[in-house]
């Protein structure tokens, strides 16, 4: 039997990916260039008995998905730029209270209202450092319509597996671009279930580390009563200022991601075997980079691309290894050098890092990358 195909936009694909992953609750506030996600979810969720709520603003939307997740739902919100800024306090709440949820943020020009219809990649640092305090961060950066679909499913899986907020951040080009998509059959892509308690309600503690770094999460309304707070907490969920408990809990929350980077970090290596010039790219910019690498190879330049698919946690290990053999890195991105900082941190001075930074609302074209390659000696 042939698979179902469609010609879809990245945002539409994201919505269908969420539904495949079992999303049954969406709360959001419409904002260009992410509104199509809310449009599709508002049409599709009622058909499967799910809930769609347009909230009064982005803060309310973030609060709503955290509440719904605690009640056992698989939840999504979508936003862009200023909306992400508004959600940040509650993203931190999701991190410390350990509430699985997916935040789909389409990157447009910023800061503030910036350029609502222009593409950008300038939210990647906000994905990790936007909310204050030490916390785990997972952020996926898809580069095609098909990949957006698949990465949204993976985001749901990671959110459940590590009991933490996960972000998916396409740039506006990927989000609004249309391509053919082939839908997987039900069951073809694994969907991670939530780990729920095996103990009776009277013995349940929401942060019981005797079950490991990711304690089971009960759903409100199933007989389990527990306390949730944004304060540093004990295993039973009630606040504490006990130094050793706070230290251990903070470290555990970050360790959920840091100790599992090999499970979370994904990337693509393109023509890297003999590459002297290594382009490090993500999102739609990686498509320009691939074009440039192909063109460079035709001109006899030994170029390759390391494509970041998981921006956080950052692929430190892989880039450190590349720095040992590359003559130089080129980092094209639609911001003023955010990924480049991370690449420099990993290159540790062993290979120069040349940036191509654009914030004018135009994509980085392959010629710019090709020209920059010639500066690597």
């Amino acid at each position, binding site marked *: 039997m042939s698979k179902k195909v469609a*010609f879809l936009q990245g945002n539409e694909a994201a919505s269908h990916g969420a539904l495949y992953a079992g999303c049954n609750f969406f709360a959001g506030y419409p904002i260009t260039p992410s509104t199509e996600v809310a449009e599709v979810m508002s049409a599709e969720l009622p058909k499967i008995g799910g809930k769609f709520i347009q909230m009064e603003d982005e803060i309310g939307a973030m609060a709503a998905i955290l509440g719904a997740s605690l009640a056992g739902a698989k939840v999504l919100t979508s936003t862009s730029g200023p909306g992400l800024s508004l959600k940040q306090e509650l993203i931190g709440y999701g991190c410390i209270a350990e509430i699985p949820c997916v935040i789909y943020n389409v990157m447009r020009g910023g800061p503030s209202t910036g350029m609502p219809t222009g593409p950008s990649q300038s939210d990647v640092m906000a994905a990790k450092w936007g909310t204050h305090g030490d916390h785990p961060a997972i952020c996926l950066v898809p580069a095609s319509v098909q990949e957006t679909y698949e990465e949204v499913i993976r985001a749901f899986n990671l959110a459940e597996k590590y009991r933490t907020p996960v972000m998916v951040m396409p740039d506006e080009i990927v989000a609004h*671009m249309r391509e053919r998509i082939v839908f997987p059959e039900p069951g073809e892509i694994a969907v991670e279930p939530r780990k729920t308690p095996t103990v009776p309600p009277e013995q349940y503690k929401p942060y019981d580390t005797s079950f490991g770094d990711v304690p089971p999460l009960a759903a409100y309304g199933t007989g389990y009563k527990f306390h949730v707070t944004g304060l540093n907490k004990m295993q039973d969920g009630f606040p504490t200022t006990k130094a050793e408990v706070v230290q251990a809990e903070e470290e555990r929350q970050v360790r959920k991601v840091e100790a599992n980077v090999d499970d979370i970090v994904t990337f693509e290596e393109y023509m890297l075997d003999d590459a002297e010039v290594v382009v490090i790219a993500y999102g739609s910019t990686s498509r320009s980079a691939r074009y440039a690498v192909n063109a460079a190879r035709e001109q006899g330049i030994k170029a390759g691309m390391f494509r970041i698919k998981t921006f956080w946690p950052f692929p430190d290990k892989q880039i450190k290894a590349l720095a040992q053999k590359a003559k130089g890195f080129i980092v094209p991105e639609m911001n003023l050098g955010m990924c480049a900082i991370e690449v420099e941190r990993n290159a540790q001075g062993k290979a120069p890092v040349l940036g191509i930074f654009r914030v004018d609302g135009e994509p980085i074209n392959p010629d710019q990358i090709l020209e920059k390659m010639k500066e690597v000696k």
Partner: protein
Amino acid sequence: MSRYELRFSGAGGQGLITAGIIMAKAASIYEGKQAVQSQSYGPEARGGASKSEVIISDGPIDYPKVTQCDALLAMTQEAANKYSHDLKEGGVLLIDSDLVKNVPPGNFKTVAFPIINTAKNDVGREIVANIVALGAMVALTGQVSRENAEKAVLSSVPEAFLELNKKAFSMGYDKAVAASA
């Protein structure tokens, strides 16, 4: 790689993004090729510059935007002036002859006919001017067959307007063939 690049340009509200989507859908879903459609537009709902770009290829498409344009549709003078410079030698420029009075010079083929007026007077509704333009672009570019393009049109418009759009598509196709002869 057989990369073919099209740009549909004009003003917001002329339906050019839709025209681009249908062209790409025809190639990707009905013609068995690969296609990517992307767009850029301003914050205005009407007016302002708008463009929709379509890349068609037999193989995977990396860069989703136009590098050197094979075929350009310009529905305003501004669009014609702005985008004709990166038209390939031997490429094709389609313009609305009522709206683009100063035909930009270059080593490409220019085809002109009154696109909006065709929709208004011959088809009967100005709103389908984008489908008239699409029909013309299908005829001039040869990237998808007339049949497959028509299928893509009919699967993309509301059921109550199938005949209207079918007529608009045919008119555009035939007028472009006549105008380029």
